[in-house]
């Protein structure tokens, strides 16, 4: 057993693609990864997961071995996508999330909006804001009753903001407040709009 401060031993943290804390990685004695646990969970759940992994159940390797037989099952594909994501294999994760979108166009699984949202966020981290808007926009166009319908609006506004298109972003934040005044994120949208108004005014002042 080893306890590593990921901020100190950055080489090992990078080697195991650790991006969230805490991350517990289980290794075979030869150092190859069995699987990992991300974040906090209750002790019984935690122990059950470790036991599963040590028995070779629900590991990335086990899931990959099932692709040939279960590769068309939306639930399986979502699990696989999340597994890749947790392991830091973002390209593979993206491929599987988008595979789910193809397999379940009507969102019977209820997870397609989550998949699209994660893809949009991955593109945001890559600073590919056009793609962020494309995939968040798909949620808005296709799944108006889904959980991620409202967050998708904020994601699009955020993409414009990060790109420096403050006026467009501000308008979208204000639209959000107008359309969803009682939403729990409405105060956040209002705050963003106000901050952008200050920035826009400062920029205009400088230019004058």
């Amino acid at each position, binding site marked *: *057993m*080893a*306890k*590593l*401060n*990921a*901020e100190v*031993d950055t080489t*090992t*943290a990078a080697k*195991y693609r*650790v991006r969230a*804390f*805490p*991350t*517990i*990685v*289980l*290794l*075979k*004695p*030869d*150092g190859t990864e*069995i699987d990992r646990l991300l974040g*906090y969970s209750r*002790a019984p759940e*935690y*122990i059950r997961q*470790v036991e599963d992994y*040590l028995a070779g159940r629900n590991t990335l390797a086990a899931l990959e071995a099932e692709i040939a037989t279960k590769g068309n099952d939306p639930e399986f594909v979502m699990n696989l996508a999340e597994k890749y994501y947790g392991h830091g294999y973002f390209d593979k994760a993206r491929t599987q999330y988008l595979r789910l979108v193809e397999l379940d166009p009507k969102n019977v699984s209820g997870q397609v909006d989550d998949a699209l949202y994660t893809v949009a966020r991955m593109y945001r981290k890559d600073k590919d804001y056009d793609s962020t808007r494309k995939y968040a926009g798909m949620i808005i166009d296709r799944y108006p009753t889904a959980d991620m319908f409202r967050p998708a609006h904020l994601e699009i506004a955020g993409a414009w903001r990060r790109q420096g298109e403050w006026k467009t972003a501000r308008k979208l934040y204000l639209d959000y407040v107008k359309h969803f005044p009682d939403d729990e994120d409405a105060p956040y949208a209002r705050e963003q709009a106000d901050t952008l108004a200050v920035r826009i005014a400062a920029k205009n002042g400088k230019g004058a």
Partner: protein
Amino acid sequence: MGKAVKAWGWAAVLAFTLVVGACQQAKPVVPKGVAWNLSIDAALADAQKTGRPILLDFYTDW
């Protein structure tokens, strides 16, 4: 603070479980806390001697 304490608590519980599991067929052992390695190399060296898997806990002091 609360989360960090919880994480330590769970790590200790887990370590206890693993130690007990490993010693099931031997005489009962009262665990005296976790002897954590503080480097991956030390953990790998241990694991190669004992043939047991490694639990690698990446944490931060945030």
